[in-house]
């Protein structure tokens, strides 16, 4: 018996909330204080990598359509890539700050996958609205990890980067399998539930 899709969205929302709060704290205290404990720089990249790994079972079990499977698979790959690159940088195995571009790539690929795999319009149902919203949030929010690759210590970029994760988390928490959005729900979307 599989969990409902909305449950899985809430679990991933929690993961993104954790990442967002960690990044926000790092932005507030600065890199010097953040790196004072050797385990701390590994925290958010580990969560990102782990969430990429956990996306594989989602891809395998939630096969409502081929395009959903491809979207979940692409998220799994890019989240693991971004997490691994950031882990490599935290460990010192990778030296070039341009490895951070992997995270920008993950944002663009994830956002594009959200936009492409949502076949319905914005006001079809709440999940459709949120897919569009999350897609555009990630595509436009990619500017933060992109610029962060060139200016890794800029607090404003770090804060923006963290806030994208928090917005993503709130959006995923708002997700319901079938629910109206701003009073709109397509009659073919199905029976709404709380």
């Amino acid at each position: 018996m599989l969990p409902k899709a909305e449950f899985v969205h809430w679990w991933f929302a929690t993961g993104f909330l954790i990442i967002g709060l960690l990044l926000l704290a790092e932005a507030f205290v600065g890199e010097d204080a953040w790196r004072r404990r050797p385990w701390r720089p590994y925290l958010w990249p580990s969560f990102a990598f782990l969430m990429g790994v956990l996306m594989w079972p989602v891809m395998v079990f939630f096969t409502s359509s081929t395009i959903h499977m491809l979207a979940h698979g692409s998220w799994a790959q890019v989240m693991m890539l971004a997490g691994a690159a950031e882990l490599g940088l935290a460990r010192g195995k990778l030296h070039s700050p341009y490895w951070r571009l992997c995270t920008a790539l993950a944002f663009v690929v994830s956002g594009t996958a959200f936009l492409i795999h949502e076949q319905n319009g914005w006001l079809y149902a709440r999940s459709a609205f949120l897919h569009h919203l999350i897609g555009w949030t990630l595509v436009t929010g990619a500017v933060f990890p992109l610029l962060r690759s060139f200016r890794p210590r800029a607090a404003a970029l770090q804060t923006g980067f963290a806030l994208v994760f928090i917005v993503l988390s709130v959006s995923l928490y708002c997700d319901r399998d079938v629910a109206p959005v701003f009073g709109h729900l397509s009659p073919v979307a199905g029976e709404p539930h709380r």
Partner: protein
Amino acid sequence: MESHFATEAAAQLRRRSPRAVAVNLIGPVTMLGGVAWAFLQPYRLTFLHPQRQGFWWLLSEPPLYVIVVGLVFALVLAPGLLEDLEEVEDAAEG
């Protein structure tokens, strides 16, 4: 004795930099968000009315997730981080 502790605590609060205050607020604000959500949608907390709820419904308590994340941040991460921030700021002041 008590007033001495109170004076010291107040002085410590006054000394806290805006960055330290911001870090200190992350956990409580997150928890507050979860609590507000729980009050707005109490039916999301299925453990309050567990009859006839399936396993997944009982496992999925999103307002509780938010509260736990805030709590863990405030209790586990924030104290050490504030300590380190204070050390860095003291070092910078010379």
